[in-house]
């Protein structure tokens, strides 16, 4: 068994891990870094429950070699709360819209929605559906998930407009 040191930035902090080279990124993040938002759903890239952002884009961490994370910037759901532990608007919107039932898929959906809610171009419901089409939910029927993302996207675009005017 070969071990290797991997250095990367996770949720804004520089971290270093000594890992077995056979580890997936999901195993490193959940096992070594104790980031429990990463779910081992299917482990084969089908369900999106392990989605994290790598350099700003969503990836399935279950089909990503941990050693590839070297030098990368990784964002997980834990990185969305502020320093006091207050949850972000998108997390709140998922709760308000009833987009969470068992919650297993939720971190993955929220991470997949980040490119939409941080973009200045409004996405249609159809585009939102496409953007989260790599995430599966057994409980909600998706409608409320799309609602939560749409609502947060609108709110953020309004906020940016507001702050731009000042």
């Amino acid at each position: 068994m070969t071990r290797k040191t991997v250095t990367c930035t996770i949720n804004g902090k520089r971290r270093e891990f000594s890992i077995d080279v056979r580890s997936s990124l999901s195993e490193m993040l959940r096992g070594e870094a104790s980031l429990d938002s990463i779910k081992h759903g299917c482990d084969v890239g089908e369900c999106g429950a392990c989605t994290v952002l790598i350099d700003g884009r969503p990836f399935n961490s279950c089909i990503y070699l941990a050693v590839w994370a070297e030098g990368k910037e990784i964002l997980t759901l834990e990185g969305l709360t502020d320093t006091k532990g207050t949850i972000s608007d998108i997390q709140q919107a998922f709760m308000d819209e009833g987009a969470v039932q068992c919650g297993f898929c939720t971190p993955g959906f929220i991470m997949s929605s980040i490119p939409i809610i941080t973009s200045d171009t409004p996405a249609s419901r159809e585009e939102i559906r496409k953007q989260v089409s790599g995430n599966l939910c057994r409980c909600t029927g998706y409608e409320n998930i799309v609602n939560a993302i749409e609502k947060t996207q609108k709110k953020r675009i309004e906020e940016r407009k507001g702050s731009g005017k000042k």
Partner: protein
Amino acid sequence: MYDFKTLYEASSVEDALRLRKDHPKALVLAGGSDILIKLRGEEISGCELISIYALDELRGVCLEEDGSLLIRPLTSFSDITMHPLIKQCVPVLGEAVDQIGGPQIRNIGTIGGNICNGVTSADSASTLKAYDAVLELASFEGIRILPYAEFNLGPGKVDLRPGELLTGIRIPRESWEHTYGEYIKYAMRRAMDIATLGCSVNVRLTADKQRIDRLRIAFGVAAPTPVRGRTAEAAAIGHALDAALLDIVGEGSLADVMPRTSWRASKEFRLHLVQELARRATIAAIGKAGGTIND
């Protein structure tokens, strides 16, 4: 843990070629969306891997001096879809790879991996075939230039020789200029699915936009490997843009395919799809080229 035996991480293309030479049995790992998934099962457990994923020199798209569009093999599907040169020269390729898997898969999956796997369902394959793509295969022996038309040897088997690495995919200027294409993927779901059948058509019209100057068509999942519909192509040259053209393309396509029955669809249904998708993609491509079909 993935169940592989050894991981060799290439630090440069040269290093990758050396690793290919020294470890002929090792599999080349690009984005891993096939190999890492297979490693969750038993099929290839215990294998050796050469990871080339970190080689940024194998990423990107550019136009060369002679107007060839050069796509480096590690370019991800989403980077291909978003790239301005792809949008300008072969937008249909960007549209085709935008139908693979879901966003996460399109961020990790690479075009080189897609074609080196040699599967007939690869969504990039039919469009690259239909555009007469040319492959650049590097080894310590030198560079071998091979038409993509000759690359697929059988299901999952490609003409990648020991010690070789795919380092470039080229679409010559003559192939993309004044040419407009359409890809239709027929699948049971709109995302996260493999094509039941795929069809890519591109046309170049005569200057007056009244006739076909060149039509090229290729299919995925219509044969053991992605195939060109040469019979339909030959019959379409110089043809007027009318209903008879669509019949010729649809029926002509049947001559070059040999689909089989699988759990996804029967042979008969696939033959129906070959004709129907060929017609529809031809109509769309002609429309994009600024032509109208007169009946």
